[in-house]
């Protein structure tokens, strides 16, 4: 951090479709802290039609709360650096295309999702849809931007031109108005670049060519494509939303998509801690999954799976019975369906107790579906010829996905489902949905400031990281769980905890139970776990694990329900599990 940055304070605003949220970050006695947060309704829609009106309200409101002059001369005060991220209009709608679905198109998807896009479709020459169907889809679903990849450098040219030909024939119009040019980024075979650009420019696309996302079959290069997406986002997309042109003149750093900011701060956190991380962001309309495994970042997005607008889609995709199995009381299917239908239609701001239970049940399925989808992204590059050895037959070295919950140190939850209910409710949703294995720290973004911190990261990385760890993340608990199953009631793991003062305590947890142990938030202790024969807490079946653990607001969770988790038909068991965590909250408070 340079000396100039040390004394700066920051007004950071994140704008989504419903809320404009401002956070003030100040240097207080050498430490950066959030000194105030304010949120007001977003004003991008009629009747206001000017996003800066909401920004002004949020800044003035925050100024009143903090006693600072944050608004001067009809713009944010220059006493603070002004940064902004945005996700209005439902996000950055992108289509991507490549030559082969599992190779270039998949790399293009990773680039688009990593840049915070909402992917509306993926096309490739290996697509099962006939060309005319792809063309019609391109035409009917107006994106904000198109990313075209295909061919390794020096590889296929004709196929890349064929794909460009399809994109050209489709004459795709942008979402923000058919009189504008749709930004198309070409990030494919460098040898096809000129011809692709010529072909696409004919149709009046705003074409930009950047380095190949897949320059070689065994290598991905997503950075240039992501930067081009950010540039196009600022130059072609966001300026079409009312007020953004003015907003762009106020910011001290270029505007970034909110999801990109979230991805950046999560990646930075994972790298800082040298820990694998899996984060879920469950919104009203979408569910995002972010992961960092061994330094490789991935984001996937399940558009139209969410807890208000997208909740019926969860029911459609998972099935009503999958949702009902998580509800800890008897409810008729009709009642559950009506609740789900009304959440989609009415999007209520306050919920009845039954609605909360249904929403929490749906959240588990939303996350499960989204994580399944994420596994396909968080995988080794496809198309590479892998030489198998005898060791591979017995080992896990060729697992199709990086995502391994036994190797995941941190799981995080974002979204109202994790912040508006009891901490124990947030924890049980995260536990049931992700089913962490081994020793896993569970956290939630309680202040909902990850977009702000991700935006700050580029300007003042130390401040962003400091605030994330000290203020933004709320540590729920550390969970200890094993892979495998046993008979109900049999002692599944023996646990010994040695605290800093030398005090020890021991626990025997029967299979099928969930238990909490008081351990102060942030308090460290040594943990010794001996699983029953056949069960694995990360060291191999039946083998002892010794490690340091950190307590959270619920202390330590000993999850002896086994993996994969069987959801019991008896509702009283679900109630018992729920109560176990609520007990942890009481013990630790």
């Amino acid at each position, binding site marked *: 951090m340079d000396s100039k940055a040390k004394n700066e304070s920051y007004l950071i605003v994140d704008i989504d*479709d419903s809320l404009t949220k401002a956070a003030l970050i100040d240097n207080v006695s050498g430490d950066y802290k959030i000194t105030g947060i304010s949120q007001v309704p977003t004003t991008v*829609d*009629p*009747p206001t039609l000017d996003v800066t009106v909401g920004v002004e309200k949020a800044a003035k409101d925050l100024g009143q709360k903090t006693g600072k002059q944050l608004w001067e001369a009809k713009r944010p005060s220059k006493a603070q650096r002004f940064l902004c991220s945005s996700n209005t*209009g*439902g996000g950055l709608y992108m289509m991507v295309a490549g030559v082969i679905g599992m190779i270039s198109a998949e790399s293009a998807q990773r680039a688009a999702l990593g840049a915070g896009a909402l992917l509306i479709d993926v096309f490739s020459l290996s697509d099962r849809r*006939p*060309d*005319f*169907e792809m*063309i*019609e889809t391109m035409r009917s679903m107006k994106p904000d931007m198109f990313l075209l990849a295909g061919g390794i450098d020096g590889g296929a*040219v*004709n196929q890349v*031109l*064929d794909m460009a*030909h399809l994109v*050209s*024939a489709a004459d795709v119009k942008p979402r923000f108005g058919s009189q504008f040019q749709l930004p198309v980024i070409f990030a494919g075979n460098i040898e096809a670049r000129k*011809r692709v650009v010529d072909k696409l420019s004919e149709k009046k696309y705003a074409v930009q060519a950047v380095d190949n996302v897949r320059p070689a079959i065994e290598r991905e290069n997503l950075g240039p494509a992501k930067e081009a997406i950010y540039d196009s986002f600022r130059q072609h997309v966001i300026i079409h939303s009312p007020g953004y042109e003015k907003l762009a003149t106020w910011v001290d750093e270029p505007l970034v998509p909110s999801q990109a900011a979230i991805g950046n701060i999560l990646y930075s956190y994972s790298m800082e801690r040298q820990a694998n991380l899996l984060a879920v962001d469950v919104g009203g*309309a979408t569910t995002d999954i972010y992961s960092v495994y061994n330094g490789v970042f991935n984001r996937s997005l399940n558009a*139209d799976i969410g807890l208000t*607008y*997208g909740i*019926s*889609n969860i*029911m*459609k*995709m998972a099935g009503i019975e999958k949702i009902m199995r998580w509800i800890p009381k008897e409810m008729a*299917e*009709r*009642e559950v*369906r*009506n609740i*789900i*239908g*009304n959440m*989609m*239609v*009415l*999007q209520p701001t306050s919920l009845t107790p039954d609605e909360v239970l249904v929403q929490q049940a749906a959240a588990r399925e939303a996350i499960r579906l989204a994580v399944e989808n994420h596994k396909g992204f968080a995988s080794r590059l496809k198309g590479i010829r892998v030489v198998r050895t005898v060791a591979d037959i017995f080992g896990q070295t060729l697992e199709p996905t990086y995502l391994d919950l036994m190797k995941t140190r941190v799981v995080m939850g974002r979204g109202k489902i994790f912040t508006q209910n009891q901490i124990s409710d947030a924890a049980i949703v995260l536990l049931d949905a992700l089913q962490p294995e081994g020793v896993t720290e569970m956290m939630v973004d309680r202040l909902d400031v990850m977009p702000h911190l991700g935006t700050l990261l580029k300007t003042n990385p130390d401040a962003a990281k400091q605030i994330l760890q000290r203020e933004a993340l709320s540590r729920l608990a550390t969970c200890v769980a094993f892979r495998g199953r046993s008979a109900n009631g049999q002692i599944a793991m023996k646990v010994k905890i040695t605290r800093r003062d030398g005090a020890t305590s021991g626990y025997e947890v029967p299979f099928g139970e969930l238990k909490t142990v008081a351990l102060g938030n942030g308090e460290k202790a040594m943990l010794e776990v001996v699983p029953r024969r056949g069960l694995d807490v990360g060291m191999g079946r039946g083998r002892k694990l010794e490690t340091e653990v950190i307590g959270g607001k619920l202390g330590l969770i000993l999850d002896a329900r086994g993996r994969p988790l069987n959801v019991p038909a008896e509702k009283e068991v679900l109630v018992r599990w729920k109560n176990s965590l609520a007990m942890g909250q009481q013990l630790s408070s």
Partner: protein
Amino acid sequence: MEELTRNGAATLVMKGFEMSQMEENRIERDTGIRKIRRISAQGQVLVKTGDLVRPETVVARGTVANPNVQKVIIYSQLGIDPDEVERYMLKEEGDEVKKGEVIAIHRSFFGRSTRICRSPIDGTIESFSKSSGSVLIRGMPIAVEVKAHLPGKVVETIPGEGAVIECRGNLIRGRFGVGGETIGELVIVAARRDESLTNELVTKELKGKIIVGGSLVTIDALRRAASLGVNGIVVGGLDQKDLTDFLGYEIGLGVTGKEETGLTVILTEGFGPHPMEEETFHLLKSCEGKQASIDGSTQIRTRMLRPEVIIPS
């Protein structure tokens, strides 16, 4: 204003469909109603400013691109390399072709061997790819038209696209609907706003009508109404399970209007049994016997389009 496309025709609705505003203004009595009626392509406008129109009056007619696009790989049919195809093409981009018409021909060995490539459909050569030696042929354009949907006066025409129709009347916005635009005489079949709309209340005389129920329409009543040719149902609620059974599939997203059930259903309150709001029920009751124009189209996410019942004065 927002532009919303439904069934090939475009409708422009005034702002006020945003949820919070909608909740405040679910009912507008004796208000000026303007609807922009236009086709989703350039065509011919059949009305002029000042014309009086009926709901079934065709406002504009035109054609839209046919979604049927066929790729014809010419080089393989002619037995040549892709980059040679251009020399043997008989048609260019933009040319119309008939099914079976020869679009490329290759003669070799002094005319002794001739290979031809024919169009598989009636249509137009959309594009030609030199690199892959293939063409895309799009089917003939499809005719589309948009009707006035409500009786009123043409206050403005949109060149080549449609017109703005204005009338006075009562407007009721529901919360969720299925099925598109339809018209019919309003018939109140539930005696009270909290009475269910059951099978027995749906009689043969209701064919072509828009019927108003109370708190909940049952699946049997829905099916009977559809089979008897009832045009629309306006009711407080409907069990989500019954809607799924009626449609034969689960509605995933709140985007509706294209359901092909032949029956438009508008829920004024939501899913499950909900007595219709008193004001809504009384307004509908006071309009019994009048013609209503209804539309079940719903888009919940960002555009917040809600289904509507218009009862022109």
